[in-house]
């Protein structure tokens, strides 16, 4: 505790004495953090849009023409017992035909010559959206295809796998870009603290000879890094809050579709960003100060 009070005095002296280089570092850190946040929020929002699209995604299970009503019931029971299936919709032959007629509209006459309904009855199944891994859907589909009374299972295979790929690619890009920016933030604090450390090299040598412990020597630098990261994070939080408020108030007025991309904006972001800044900056400072040898 005493160590902290002592170091704080030294830190405030340094923060004030080197205010320009500190301010520059704080601003760079806040820009970096804002970029990461923007990226992550974009990914989360895009992902939620994709998830919403995917909600409408389902399997269409076409039944055999000669399917018995017992078979239909047993299929329905199997589906409702399956936890992965959240919605079951039964489309009878008649309903299918009606829908077809509706779709065709004026061209309905094409169907005029039919004396028998050629359409099969079917089940439309909606799957849990977190199960939209194409491989899993494929497995589920072939499982259902082997059930008795089932003729064929169809689903938007291509569409699903491209959505899935986009979602995965976006996450990967975010992780890579976010990681790179975090490293950049750590490096910015690292170089600033390294400069301070070198400037005070003689003083540190003397302190070591007088009997200063490692923690006494290191703590001021780590605290300075912590404050840089924290302030950078707070500035970034304020900026994010400002931009978010501005866009949600103004832009949505003119561009309602923007709301689509701002579905979720948890308030925790305003706490996590400064914390992330602090942690990354302290890591940078730790590396800058390095090992202290007597």
């Amino acid at each position, binding site marked *: 505790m005493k160590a902290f009070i*002592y170091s704080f005095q030294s830190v405030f002296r340094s923060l004030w004495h080197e205010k320009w280089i500190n301010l520059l570092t704080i601003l760079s850190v806040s820009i970096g953090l804002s970029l990461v946040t923007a990226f992550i929020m974009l990914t989360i929002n895009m992902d939620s849009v994709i998830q919403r699209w995917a909600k409408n995604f389902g399997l269409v299970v076409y039944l055999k023409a000669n399917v018995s009503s017992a078979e239909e019931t047993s299929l329905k029971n199997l589906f409702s017992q399956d936890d992965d299936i959240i919605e079951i919709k039964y489309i009878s032959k008649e309903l299918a035909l009606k829908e077809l007629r509706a779709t065709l509209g004026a061209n309905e006459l094409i169907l005029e010559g039919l004396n028998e309904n050629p359409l099969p009855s079917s089940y439309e199944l909606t799957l849990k959206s977190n199960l939209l891994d194409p491989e899993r859907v494929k497995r589920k589909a072939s499982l259902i295809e082997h059930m008795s009374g089932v003729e064929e299972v169809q689903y938007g295979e291509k569409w699903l796998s491209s959505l899935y790929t986009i979602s995965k690619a976006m996450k990967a890009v975010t992780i890579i870009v976010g990681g790179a920016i975090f490293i950049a933030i750590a490096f910015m604090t690292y170089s600033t603290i390294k400069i301070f450390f070198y400037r005070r090299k003689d003083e540190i040598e003397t302190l070591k000879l007088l*009997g200063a412990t490692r923690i006494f020597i290191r703590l001021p630098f780590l605290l300075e890094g912590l404050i840089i990261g924290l302030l950078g994070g707070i500035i970034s939080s304020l900026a994010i809050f400002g931009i978010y408020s501005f866009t949600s108030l103004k832009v949505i007025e003119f561009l309602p579709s923007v709301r689509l991309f701002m579905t979720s904006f948890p308030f925790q972001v305003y706490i996590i960003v400064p914390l992330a800044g602090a942690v990354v900056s302290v890591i940078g400072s730790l590396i800058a100060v390095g090992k202290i040898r*007597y």
Partner: protein
Amino acid sequence: MIEFSNVTKYYEDDVVFKDVTFTIDKGELAFITGPSGAGKTTLLKLIYCDERPDKGQIVVAGWDIGKLKQKTIPYLRRNVGIVFQDFRLLSNRTVFDNVALALRIHYMNASTIKEDVTAVLKEVKLGHKANTYPQHLSGGEQQRVVIARAMVSKPTVLLADEPTGNLDIDNSQIIMGLFREINARGTTVLIATHNQELFHGTGRRVFFIKDHSIEKEGIG
């Protein structure tokens, strides 16, 4: 208090000490002498663990130097006050702050520090220079600041490296007087000097470094 047993020290391939054995007793004030380059500074560095022996054993105030871990070195040094040959005063700190540093590293509270530093500055006759920066002091005054910093934490051992290096006789006498006082309070004092005048007639033990060993010990 300070015990060397068969200590050998090399710098790269150059031998500085070969099989050196000597003891300085608790409460003693002793001198170590020899020509420039003989190894006086190195010997002091071995004591405060700035250099490590290549062979042999060194025990200081009960600490076996050879067995010290990196992180325990500071605790040894807190028992050893050092008057550096090159002073090592911080030019961006006042005299007061330079001396206070030796207590701040112990996380001592501000009021105790103020008391102790003020007292010790008065003792070295620099009470009126507390707020001056070291580079505005004369050589003799700077030397006294260094001594004040070394003694303020009341160490068990005080080491002084050429403490009268380029001072006139008057200033040298003042400084020797300070060492005698510190010693009279129970601190073991070891002074390294090439200047024979310093120990002539003191009646204290003198260790002569010659040919990489302590050749003889005599009375000054």
